[in-house]
């Protein structure tokens, strides 16, 4: 069985072995193999191509930009997504603008160990996809399955555009798959994770699994909820969402990041504008609460959406 985390490690191994332009740079990614062991043994396997950075997020991203201009394909790891705020300027103002300004693409991958885990607290739990998606020029991937963690990371490395790769820490260890995928959907394509007819849940990342669990619960009541896994939140596959809403007439968007301007808001805005006639009732969203992520597990488990709160919201949606 391959974990989500191991899939990420294997994708990097494959990228390193197949493309000499690839290198890995980040805090503790070298001999130590990374804070989460996502680069374990890669430094040994690929001498001189996997190395430790100083505690300098801004320099890490800035160096990746320079290396990318010179034709390399750096993969950089932020130790936690939350620390990317310290490299924020290089991401949004250098990497993201380079192609538009100069015509030279910036093929960097910034790996962000994202999202909440029990006890993580305000600075080791953030879901930053909406932040990066707001800025033009960044592809923002949010793989929710082992297969996508692998396949999409390889796609990210192959892309000429900068990719913010939001890998979800909650899925690292306990999400497992039998093997690695042979193929992967094209970049930017959403996936129907569960077919249904009564309502559509649009979600991504760890919330896919909470949503799937909620769907099982609702199925016991006879409701068949369709679930769309966005996979990539920028670009967003509006067509797949609209096709689902066309079938169900009801839309619930579930996102772990904060509500204001989050993925859920963006999706609802699109569907309302482009698929207004498809909606039978008001669309709904369910996000984390609009506070920092609390550290105490009892608070945390109420702060983010869970199978229970999703099922509850879906029931309300179904009963309107």
């Amino acid at each position, binding site marked *: 069985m391959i974990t989500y985390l191991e899939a990420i490690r294997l994708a990097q191994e494959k990228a390193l072995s197949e493309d000499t332009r690839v290198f890995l740079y980040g805090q503790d990614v070298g001999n130590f193999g990374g804070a989460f062991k996502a680069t374990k043994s890669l430094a040994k396997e690929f001498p001189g191509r996997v190395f430790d950075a100083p505690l300098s997020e801004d320099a890490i991203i800035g160096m990746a930009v320079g290396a990318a201009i010179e034709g390399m394909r750096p993969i950089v790891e932020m130790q936690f997504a939350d*620390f990317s705020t310290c490299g924020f300027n290089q991401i949004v103002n250098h990497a993201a603008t380079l192609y538009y300004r100069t015509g030279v693409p910036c093929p960097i991958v910034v790996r962000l160990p994202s999202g909440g885990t029990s006890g993580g607290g305000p600075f080791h739990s953030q879901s930053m996809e909406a932040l990066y998606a707001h800025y033009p020029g960044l592809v923002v991937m949010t793989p929710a399955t082992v297969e996508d963690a692998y396949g999409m990371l390889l796609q990210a490395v192959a892309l000429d555009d900068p990719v913010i790769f939001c890998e979800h820490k909650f899925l690292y260890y306990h999400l497992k798959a039998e093997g690695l995928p042979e193929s992967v959907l094209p970049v930017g394509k959403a996936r129907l994770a569960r077919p249904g007819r009564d309502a559509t849940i649009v979600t991504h990342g760890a919330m896919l699994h909470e949503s799937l669990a909620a769907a099982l619960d609702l199925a016991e009541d006879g409701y068949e909820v369709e679930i769309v896994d966005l996979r990539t939140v920028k670009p967003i596959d509006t067509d797949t969402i609209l096709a689902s809403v066309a079938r169900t007439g009801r839309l619930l968007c579930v996102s772990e990041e904060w509500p204001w301007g989050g993925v859920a808001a963006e999706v609802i805005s699109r569907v309302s504008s482009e698929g207004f006639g498809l909606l039978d009732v008001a669309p709904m969203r369910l996000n984390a609460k609009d506070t920092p992520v609390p550290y105490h597990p009892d608070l945390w488990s109420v702060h983010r959406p869970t199978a229970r709160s999703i099922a509850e919201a879906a029931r309300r949606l179904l009963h309107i």
Partner: protein
Amino acid sequence: MPTQKADPPVTGADFIKAYRLMLVARVLEEKLASLYRAGAIKGGVFLGRGQEALSVSVGIHLHRGDIYAPLIRDQAGRMAFGDTVLDTLRTYLGSQLGPMRGRDGNIHRGRPREGYYAMISHLGAMIPAVAGALLARRLRGESGIVGATCIGDGGTSTGAFHEGLNAAAVEKLPLILVVANNQYAYSTPNARQFACADLLDKAVGYGVVGHKVDATNLEQCLATLRRAIGAARAGGGPQLVVGDLLRLVGHGEHDDGSYVDPALKASPVGRDCVLLAEERIISENWAPAAECAKWRQEAEQEVNATVDKVRREPGPDPEDDDWAAFSNSEFAEHYAGL
């Protein structure tokens, strides 16, 4: 570096006072480690074992009214500044009665209103905050006040370290910035972190006074911090103190630190400052060995009793939380549509 001539000696009483605080921190952290292994802790555990002498020397020379922004490995400094075993355990064990009410945890605890700042994780970030606090005090006409904060060897590589120290130097603020060079940032050794011969070499580039200290040696730490804090208090501007030592524990309790070079462990930086201090107390005849053992027992008793008490306290109740990030609670929106 020996204590300078002009400095008054560190007395046995000073030394013992500091030692006992170190001991409480050490014992408390040993307990935290065992509670962690027992699965009783909420969140991560990052300990300061081996860094007590340097840390305590900061907290012990601060006064009420000063500002202290401790970092990851400052349990000893925290105790010296007035934090308690009770508050510490309440935070680690997730009691609702702790200063952070379950919203933030462990090393992030503080009581900012009392000058005891609550670190954010982003390393370096507390440096400009303390500088700003000192600026505020100056603007309000207060003087003789200092602010101290700590950082690791890794943290010196952050932009925040640079900007914060530089801005403090420009304003000639009474900031004491203590660098605990424990040779590693997580697994990253000094050689991959900086290229200067010694982190002390940074002082001149900021135009601040630099102090170097063998951070396994409590007497040196006490004397050096007393001097540095005194200089800041007297208007000497920012003081950069660099102490050499070794983290005698993993980065966090999840980490076995197997990457630490055995040669470093065997070298002078690898000595245990608590043991060295105890030996010193005994050899100087400041107290007999039995007394030291009694102090440890007292610390253990306090820690154990507090654990028992705190374990019976309730955790935070999500139903009671107002889930408001704004102090003006009317600004909280609840994103209804549900």
